[in-house]
């Protein structure tokens, strides 16, 4: 029995572990000779987490370069989220951002510096002074590697704190007990040994990251398969606002790798098949530097109107890209100020951006929604508000001992569209808060408390937890055995060279994942309507889901059998895709990142509310917490 199991070891999970261990409660407990039993489980070695790919910065009103005020940051966050932001949470985010960033610096992050030695800050889209005025330098940065720096510093601090990790364990179940009212633990697959573990815990925290792999074109790593969100659904919980997925406008075609906004800031221009610089038509005055969601929508509108271009790597493929024309930028200047962008284009597209246009398309970047949590990271169920789009009175019923943080969660600071620089902040700040909340619970009743040995209530609750986790683990073990029984009895791990043809007739999770990504991209990338969503749901229900159920591994040895994990991943993606489609379908308006072609306007009368979607696709509505900033039109 663990005091707490943390699932995921990116910025949120590691922040939670540190927030927990550094809390006064745990310090006191340790002084009394009681060691908290904490385990961090992650599907990747922690240093491989996707946090490491974040480039731009982490937002905080430090005011190191020019005057700034956390109230302005608060306002920008609410406005950027198109007012679908819980303002009590956004207030905490802005107010404690400076503390969060300074703690990261003190933990070793190699921030870029000003001449007087302070943390350097740069401008970022949507961050303004005086409530929507001029742009402000608010994003603290470390060249273009802030995520790498934060991830490594957090891991280093966890090494210092003696955190125990179970690395490359893939979590297959979130187990609740007492009719879903309490966390009981998790079931995890040790990919090294190929064995299933029943991990019992009084507290569980999910920090499993996003789900960019729902879409074919994504900036996300191959591991962002929405596992935590899907496991929450499977455990009978809801997901909040999952219809909101941010697409970054300039993903390098074919790869989805991000080309920074800086490419356009330095003079890059988006052009359609006719060579027209079309953004001026959609966003007069702002043109190529309009807000991310605006640019992404404009690109898709051009493509839908038949003015897209094919990826030169696939000249006969669909015309689903536009050009990013950087030929107007002085080549020497381009190399000096956009080294990473130029390197990416040269390396992955084999194009010289000084001479030729670069094919780009919007790339799935961030899931604003996720597992619903309070500002202390506690997961809850929403009861009530089942009316068609009307947020009714209802209540939050917390799940005892269950917490979440980071991209897999939704405390609703990002609302319908996230501002750049706010994702790392969310992960670190609310990760730390969740860790502290866990600490308070653990200190109140530690597993190793010598005084509590005979408390029959505590023992009884632990017994119930253990039974639930063992039962779930038993199920998984049975399933694992099935998956490891190859359908093709002739399959031999030492085949003749190029024997692939026989197996290629068979299905596999990697192919299925690619097909799901294509279906979701057609139906819901950047824009959608009732018909596109229905088509995708049918494709999933009629074809992809049955195929996913029928999958089995092509090799019978469990150790390092990646296909096993991939099968579970694609099943998770399918469960999550259904929820995303259901929530998108239920919201009859356009807001932030969600563009419904059949409901093009924002509708505050009916949809100033969070969607709460369960595994069956039922959607309930929870009112948005409006505290200080009444809804207004979102204009830049």
């Amino acid at each position, binding site marked *: 029995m663990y005091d707490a199991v943390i699932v995921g070891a990116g910025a949120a999970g590691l922040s939670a572990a540190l927030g927990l261990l550094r809390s006064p409660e745990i310090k006191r407990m340790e002084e009394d000779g009681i060691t908290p039993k904490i385990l961090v489980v992650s599907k990747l070695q922690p240093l491989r987490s996707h946090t490491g790919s974040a480039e731009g910065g982490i937002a905080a009103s430090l005011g190191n370069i020019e005057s700034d005020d956390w109230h302005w940051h608060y306002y920008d966050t609410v406005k950027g989220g198109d007012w679908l932001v819980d303002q009590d949470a956004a207030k905490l985010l802005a107010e404690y951002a400076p503390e969060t960033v300074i703690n990261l610096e003190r933990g070793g992050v190699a921030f870029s510096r000003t001449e007087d030695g302070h943390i350097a800050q740069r401008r970022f889209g949507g961050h303004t002074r005086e409530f929507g005025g001029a742009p402000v330098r608010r994003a603290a940065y470390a060249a273009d590697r802030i995520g790498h720096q934060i991830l490594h510093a957090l891991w280093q601090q966890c090494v210092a704190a003696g955190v125990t990790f179970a690395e490359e364990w893939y979590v297959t179940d979130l187990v609740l007990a007492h009719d879903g009212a309490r966390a009981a633990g998790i079931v995890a697959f040790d990919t*090294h040994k190929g064995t299933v573990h029943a991990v019992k815990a009084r507290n569980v925290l999910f920090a499993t990251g996003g789900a960019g792999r729902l879409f074919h074109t994504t900036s996300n790593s191959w591991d962002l398969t929405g596992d935590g969100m899907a496991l929450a659904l499977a455990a009978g919980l809801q997901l909040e606002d999952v219809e909101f997925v941010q697409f970054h406008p300039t993903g390098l075609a074919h790869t989805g790798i991000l080309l920074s906004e800086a490419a356009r800031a330095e003079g890059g221009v988006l052009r359609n098949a006719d060579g027209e610089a079309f953004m001026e038509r959609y966003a007069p005055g702002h043109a190529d530097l309009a807000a991310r969601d605006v640019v992404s929508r404009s690109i898709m509108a051009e493509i839908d109107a038949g003015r897209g271009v094919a990826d030169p790597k696939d000249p006969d493929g669909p015309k689903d890209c536009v050009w990013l024309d950087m030929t107007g930028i002085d080549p020497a200047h381009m190399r000096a100020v956009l080294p990473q962008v130029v390197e990416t284009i040269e390396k*992955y597209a084999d194009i010289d951006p000084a001479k030729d246009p670069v094919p780009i398309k919007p790339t799935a970047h961030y899931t604003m929604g996720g597992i619903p949590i309070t500002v202390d990271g506690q997961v809850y169920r929403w009861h009530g508000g089942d009316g068609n789009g009307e947020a009714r009175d209802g209540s939050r019923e917390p799940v005892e001992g269950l917490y979440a943080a980071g991209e897999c969660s939704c405390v609703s600071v990002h609302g319908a569209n996230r501002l750049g620089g706010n994702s790392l902040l969310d992960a670190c700040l609310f990760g730390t808060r969740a860790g502290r909340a866990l600490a308070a619970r653990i200190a109140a009743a530690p597993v190793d408390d010598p005084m509590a040995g005979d408390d029959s209530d505590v023992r009884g609750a632990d017994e119930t937890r253990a039974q639930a986790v063992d039962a779930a683990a038993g199920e998984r073990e049975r399933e694992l055995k099935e998956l490891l029984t190859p359908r093709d009895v002739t399959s031999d791990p030492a085949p003749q060279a190029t024997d692939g043809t026989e197996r290629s007739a068979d299905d596999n999770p990697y192919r299925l994942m690619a097909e799901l990504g294509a279906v979701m991209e057609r139906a819901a990338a950047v824009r959608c309507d009732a018909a596109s969503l229905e088509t995708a749901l049918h494709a999933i229900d009629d074809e992809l889901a049955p195929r996913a159920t029928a999958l089995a591994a092509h090799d019978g040895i469990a150790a390092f059998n990646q296909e096993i994990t991939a099968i579970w991943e694609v099943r998770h993606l399918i469960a999550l895709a259904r929820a995303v489609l259901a929530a998108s379908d239920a919201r009859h308006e356009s807001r932030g990142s969600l563009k419904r072609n059949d409901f093009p306007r924002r509708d505050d009368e009916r949809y100033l509310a969070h969607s709460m979607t369960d595994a069956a696709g039922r959607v309930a509505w929870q009112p948005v917490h409006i505290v200080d900033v009444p809804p207004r039109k979102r204009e830049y």
Partner: protein
Amino acid sequence: MTNSTVTTVTLKVNRFTPRPERAERARGGSPFARTRKSSPFGGSSAAPARRRPRGKQWVQEYTIPARPEDTVLDCLLTIKRTVDPTLAFRYSCGHGMCGSDAVAINGTPNLLCTATLKDWAKPSGSLPRTDDEGFRRIGDDAGTEEEASAEVSPDTACDGSLGVIELGPLPGFPVERDLIADIDPMLDQIRKLKPYLEADGVLATTHEGKVDVFEYLQHPDELARYEQLSNCIACGVCEGSCPVFAGGDAFIGPAALIWASRFVNDSRDTITMDRLDAIDTADGVAACQSVRACTRQCPRGIDVGEEMWQIVAKVRER
């Protein structure tokens, strides 16, 4: 665009499947586990007696459609999707940041996701033969049937073949399965050297003695002394390239030393002397033979060899 002719590439992958019972044996048990690695200079006569991991080893060849600008990772993912879902290799971010996909490409440690076919595919037959740990074996007549059958026929070569790439797990580390190596030895060595900032905890104050700023101040010049070192992604490429480390001699390895150097050079850190003491050992800086092979393929552009030299000098001068 330029060329819509279908081209192909042939990947020769050194594969390995552990025996099921190996799972029970668990990892990291024996302190002698590292002796499994043989020296690249040890000669081939030792090869048959080599302490190979227990399991099944073979070379498998895949010929798939590919373009010159594709990465090796693109090709392996295509293989997983369309040919052989059992092939095992680590990968995650796909653009050189996560550091998970270091393997031996044509015998040279590198990342799958940054190596392109146009840089690495060689006309078939021109490759020096390498074993599963990426070592070239000179005078080894163990030309097996697999290798014989691997010869691409002249027709194929004329018919749009970009050539052959040979893949094996990262040298210097025990293989777990196919291209997956156990890099825990490297992470353990990094962890051994206190890989975290030990600052003084003193806050800067104003003239009146009030707390002024809460972050540690650091001038850009001070940052520049360690910034690039802090970009290390712990992929293990330098370790696999180092003949001392990969050769199996006792050496804490270039990666751990880069991490130590990162903190030694950080103006905020207060335990420089302890850090230098910790690496002034027979398996620390003394084991570095200044071969500088560690520099060549660093995906973050760190001049590892030069940094080794610098840290050795610092240890000596203290």
